[in-house]
């Protein structure tokens, strides 16, 4: 972790551009947050200038707006419409032909998203049948994490134990600082590859004051999350709530549009379709993202198992918070808040969990 690092280093804003250049020179395609069509999306960066200097976000349930920041901060924004899943587990891929693996460098991976990558590793990279396409992509990725010092209104990673500090799973970790002493990034390393890049960066050693400020900022972030999961055994709560009438109430608000599953950084479900050309030759097999909100998701001969929207929402939320533990040994939720912000109807998983807990308490 950053603060256990014997000597955190410091780079300035130009150092960030230099970092992007160095990674590109090493053959990485650098991916990071950049502004497009009114949101900060994750996309290939031509250079450090594509990063969103001074752009912040305002998020809420079913709400996302860009805003101009008073400072020039690059990484203080949360809950964009995409996650890194896009790159390690792409929306569409051919599964019956080899695929060249690009070397990707991710810049600006927040702790919730580091946790999400670790969860995907446990789902798709686990024995006895690891998804080697996933692992091949994942192995190539250079991760530049950022400690979260400014959680958003839909953030709740402090209550899911997945932030705001980056603990592991990165090559480099940044903590962004503004104000006195200028715009700078404290930088720690998490791997040999990270150390090698650091050696080539223009940097200086952090001062005691900078380190104390960084620690305070991350500590404060834990206390300023816009939302939180109820402090209860969610796994048990969801288990016991299978028969709850609450699911019908959610169904009245739910669009069954699948946005929550698409933006979730850990939702991994896929379906597979065969394709041929008109001549009937050249068969191809394609895998694409699927969603438990799709009516065909639970199809077996005779019809879908989950016909009602309520049963589909129950499946999604129960899987995320409860049965994920049974299947993969962890929770499936990292508190990133994307499902809350990008639900057009503004359904809030933390509020639904709280409502279930309250119903159970008062029953």
């Amino acid at each position, binding site marked *: 972790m950053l603060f256990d690092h014997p000597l955190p280093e410091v780079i300035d804003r130009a150092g960030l551009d230099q970092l992007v250049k160095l990674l590109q020179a090493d053959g990485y395609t650098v991916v990071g947050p950049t502004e*497009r*069509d*009114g*949101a900060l*999306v994750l*996309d290939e960066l031509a250079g450090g200038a594509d990063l969103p200097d001074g752009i912040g976000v305002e998020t809420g349930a*079913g*709400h*996302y*707006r860009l805003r101009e920041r008073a400072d020039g901060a690059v990484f203080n924004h949360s809950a964009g*419409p*995409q996650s890194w899943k*896009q790159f390690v587990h792409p*929306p*569409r891929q051919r599964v019956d032909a080899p695929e060249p693996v690009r070397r990707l460098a991710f810049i600006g991976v927040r702790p919730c998203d580091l946790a999400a990558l670790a969860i995907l590793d446990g789902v798709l990279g686990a024995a006895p049948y690891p998804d080697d396409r996933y692992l091949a992509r994942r192995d190539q990725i250079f991760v530049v994490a950022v400690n979260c010092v400014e959680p958003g209104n839909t953030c709740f990673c402090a209550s899911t134990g997945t932030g705001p500090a980056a603990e592991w799973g990165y090559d480099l970790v940044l903590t962004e600082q503004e104000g006195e002493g200028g715009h700078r990034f404290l930088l720690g390393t998490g791997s040999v590859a990270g150390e090698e890049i650091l050696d080539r960066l223009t940097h200086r050693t952090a001062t005691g004051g900078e380190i104390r400020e960084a620690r305070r900022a991350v500590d404060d972030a834990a206390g300023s999350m816009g939302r939180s999961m109820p402090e209860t055994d969610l796994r048990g709560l969801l288990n016991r709530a299978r028969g709850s009438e609450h699911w019908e109430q959610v*169904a*009245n*608000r*739910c*669009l*069954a*549009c*699948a*946005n929550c599953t*698409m*933006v979730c950084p850990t939702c991994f479900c896929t379906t597979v*379709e*065969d*394709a*041929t*050309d*008109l*001549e*009937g030759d050249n068969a191809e097999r394609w895998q*694409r*993202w699927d*969603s438990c*909100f*799709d*009516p*065909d998701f639970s199809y077996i001969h005779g019809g879908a198992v989950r016909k009602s*929207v309520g049963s*589909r929402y129950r499946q999604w939320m129960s899987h995320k918070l409860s049965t994920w533990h049974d299947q993969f040994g962890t929770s499936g939720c990292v508190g990133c808040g994307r499902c809350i*912000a*990008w*639900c*057009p*109807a*503004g359904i809030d998983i933390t509020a639904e969990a709280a409502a279930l807990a309250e119903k159970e308490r008062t029953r």
Partner: protein
Amino acid sequence: MGKPTLAVWKFTSCDGCQLTLLDCEDELLAIADAVQIKHFPEATRKDLPGPFDVSLVEGSISTPAEAERIKRIREETGTLVAIGACATSGGIQALRNFADLDEFQRIIYPHPEFLHSLEQVAPIAAHVDVDYELRGCPIDKRQLLGLLSALLKGRRPDLPKGAVCNECKQRGVNCLLVEGKEPCLGPITQAGCGAICPSYNRGCYGCFGPSDSAQPEALIPVLSRLGLADPDIVRMLRTYNAAAPKLAAAGDRLEGAHDDA
């Protein structure tokens, strides 16, 4: 073994969906190679008798004669595919289901007695069994080719039943509703177009009709929050797929709420 036979039929419609087949310029030769086209009014005067392995049916059933003709086509067809909003929900002309047909006829035609119209404009499936539906106004060329390739191979066509939102998110198109930019019917509209309109920052106007699990009632408050008045929402719901039961019901309820008030 002879080639599979294909027929393309037109009912009450604008021919735009037939044109989508003609727009398959790069693939037309392959299609003509793969099937024997027996009937296709937009493309050929040839009119060969049935049976037909596959019939693509465009247009709604709007007249008694059409109601008879579709039955004959069904009898002579193996796999019947309704193509386009008119064939799958009644199309734009089904707006007359919400109005007084006699009054329209009297206002527009000097001799309405020569007209033979059914009381209600209806999709093909209201009159005969339909095996598959291609939605859209017009249909999507990629889906059409996928359907034909699948039928030729004996594969179930890949026609997702989920919402357009799936396609936006998979393409990386940002949400117009959540960003507060435009009213959008994407969350209740069936995928298949590739999210064309949202990718140009235009709200989905629902030309693919309601998705299998569409919940228009859950979208109405979202549209209201964007500043749309109820009559505006009713107008959004009543366009190319006005008569699709879920959209019609939601629109009726909104109108009813105002009549009561």
